[in-house]
């Protein structure tokens, strides 16, 4: 029996769906993207099924574009299947109200995942758009912009301390204190908390989870406004910020597509 991995999006999957799948020769296995291990099942799977819309942070969410990016990039032979109660005319969509209409032949004519494929519109916030705002250089939604400003100060301070041997009291007075790191950190945390749960049903949930863990290691130093010399002197703070940045860059590279405008295409 072939395997289909189910992302239920924080909503209980209908019993009828499980029964239907088994009737046509497919076994549904529920996966939780925030937890590790689910990616190991992908090479053997027939596809990934999303129960749409997902539910999180008190809102309906559409994660289909992000899954499309992930599968097209890493497992293009897998089918990205979508199931909902909406009436959607799409080759890989399964209407939960009309399961009896989909025989075994329907599964055979579903399509593999292509990045160019235009996905249907589902109710809920389009998470690919949200992610773009997350990475935008400006604007109130940008998480990365605030982190960049923090990293800029930490990078300059580390260099002064380690390379130029400038006394930390001087660095703190001239650079770190005026930068108001504690305020910036709070701003970053607020934005992060608003965003991060939205992506728990997406393939990037694991990476965001890692970033969340990284932030805990330096929260104390940040909230103290960077007064302590040691975490900066031993490179820990800058290292954590660099790791966070690297994780974020990986996400951006994989999921946020740079599109050229018509003028410069």
């Amino acid at each position: 029996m072939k395997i289909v991995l189910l992302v239920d999006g924080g909503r209980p999957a209908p019993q009828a769906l499980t029964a239907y799948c088994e009737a046509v020769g497919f076994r549904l296995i529920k996966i939780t993207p925030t937890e590790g291990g689910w990616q190991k099942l992908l090479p053997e799977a027939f596809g990934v099924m999303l129960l749409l819309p997902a539910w999180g942070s008190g809102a309906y969410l559409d994660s289909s574009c992000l899954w499309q990016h992930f599968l097209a990039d890493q497992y293009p032979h897998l089918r990205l299947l979508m199931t909902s109660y909406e009436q959607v005319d799409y080759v890989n969509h399964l209407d939960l109200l009309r399961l009896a209409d989909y025989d075994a032949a329907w599964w055979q004519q579903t399509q593999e995942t292509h990045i160019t494929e235009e996905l249907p519109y589902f109710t809920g916030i389009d998470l690919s758009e949200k992610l773009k705002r997350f990475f935008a250089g400006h604007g109130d939604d940008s998480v990365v912009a605030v982190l960049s400003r923090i990293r800029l100060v930490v990078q300059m301070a580390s260099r002064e301390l380690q390379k130029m041997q400038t006394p930390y009291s001087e660095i703190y007075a001239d650079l770190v204190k005026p930068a108001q790191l504690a305020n910036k950190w709070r701003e970053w945390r607020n934005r992060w908390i608003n965003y991060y749960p939205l992506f728990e049903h997406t393939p990037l949930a694991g990476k965001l989870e890692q970033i969340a863990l990284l932030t805990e290691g330096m929260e104390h130093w940040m909230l103290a406004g960077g007064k302590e010399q040691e975490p900066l002197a031993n490179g820990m703070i800058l290292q954590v910020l660099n790791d966070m940045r690297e994780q974020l860059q990986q996400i951006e590279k994989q999921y946020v597509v740079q599109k050229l405008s018509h003028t410069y295409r």
Partner: protein
Amino acid sequence: MSSKNYHILIVDDDAEFHQQIRYAFRRQFLFSGAINEKQLFEKLSGEGHFDLILLDLVLDDSETKKGLDIIPQIAQRYPNIPVIIVTADRSIDTVVQAMKQGARNFLVKDDFDYDYWEQQFSAVIDGSKLKQENLVLRAEVDRRRAQENEAYPFIGESTQIKEIKRILKLVSEEPDVTVLITGETGTGKEVAARYLHAHGARSKQPFQAVNLSAIQDSLLESTLFGHKKGAFTGASRDMEGYFSQANTGILMLDEIGDIDQNIQIKLLRFLETKLIRPVGSDQDVQLDVQVVTATHRNLTAAVAESRFRADLFQRLKAMVIELPPLRSRRDDIPLLLSHYFEVDDLQKVLTTAALDAMLNYNWVGNIRELKNTVNYAQLRARIQDKKRIDEHCLPTEITSEQPVIPVSFTQNNNTSGSAPTDNAGETPHAGPKNIDEEHALIDLDRIEKLLIQKNKVKKDVAIAIGLENTDNLRYRIKKHFEKHPHLFTNFPTISQSYRRIVK
């Protein structure tokens, strides 16, 4: 602070960013700041010189990329100040737009890297300064070239000269046509070539003039086409020839009628293929050189006598410009005298008798002879303590002699081979076999007389003829002797003074 003291203007609405950049680079650069467009232009117009502008694209809360519109304004009003975009926006669209508008580089705040940024600031400033220095040097080259052209003015308001100037201007619009300038020695063939250069498409490019008759035959090929190290004894390093030095510009080959067949073949090859091969090299070099040639010889006759290749002559005479001798445009003599005496009114420096003598003289050495005469007369006037030059300050042949060579002779001695329009004058020795021998005879007769007059002082004879030095006089006599050795029995003073040649 760096010894260079570069002054950078930061334009960013984030005051914290100003403070951080100032702090980080305080040892290397001097900074000023502006937080919006208005302040930016106030600083640029009021605070003196800036070496670099670091410009953010978003300068207020509107999130519009105003910086993109500011770049061309800066480029237009302050073209020497380079702009680096420093922004949080990393989208490809924005990068492309900024670079198209004229930004020199694009740095993303999120990618801050101290060493890289410092290197970029310095590189852009140094690059900009180098560009400015190049512009200054270019202007200096143009200025010197203009000065050089001023040093070779094409003076003349006679009908013939006006027409030649008109033709030269027309020809100068054709940067690839080969031009042959003919005319007697001293008629201003190089001046005409420089006039062509100054008014043409290649005016910003090099101009090289080389007198082929002044270069030893054995060295001519390497002098023109260059040589590789070890190509011959004494070739201790690679050397560029005149052709390479004139690349993209004009090369004037004077006395083209004097080159041997080997060089004629190589010149023909260049004119047909634009390729040269330095001596000792196995590689051809492609060059873009407009060739202007000049000669006082009758090339038609030289071709008939198989001394000059007919195919090369055909290539050279694509455009022939014949300069008239000075005696056929006497109207220009006062203009030339004014130029060389550097006065507007000749009466201030010349007596009427002296002027008349100069106006009536035949000027066999043409403008060069006139120029040397001016120098000679000025010196004589100083020696004789005279305020104005009178006929006693002039060389004796000007005041005492009748014209040596009639105008009709030189009209007969042209490249087009047109028929003489006047009767040939009396020649001192009868029976020349051809026009070349007739020319030699007249020339030798004149030199003979001058040697007697000048007590055999060769330098004075050279000056009187209009030659630059005694080497040229010796060369001239040698050429005559090589072609017409039998004539020398008629000129005992020359034979005595140039015993080694005649022997």
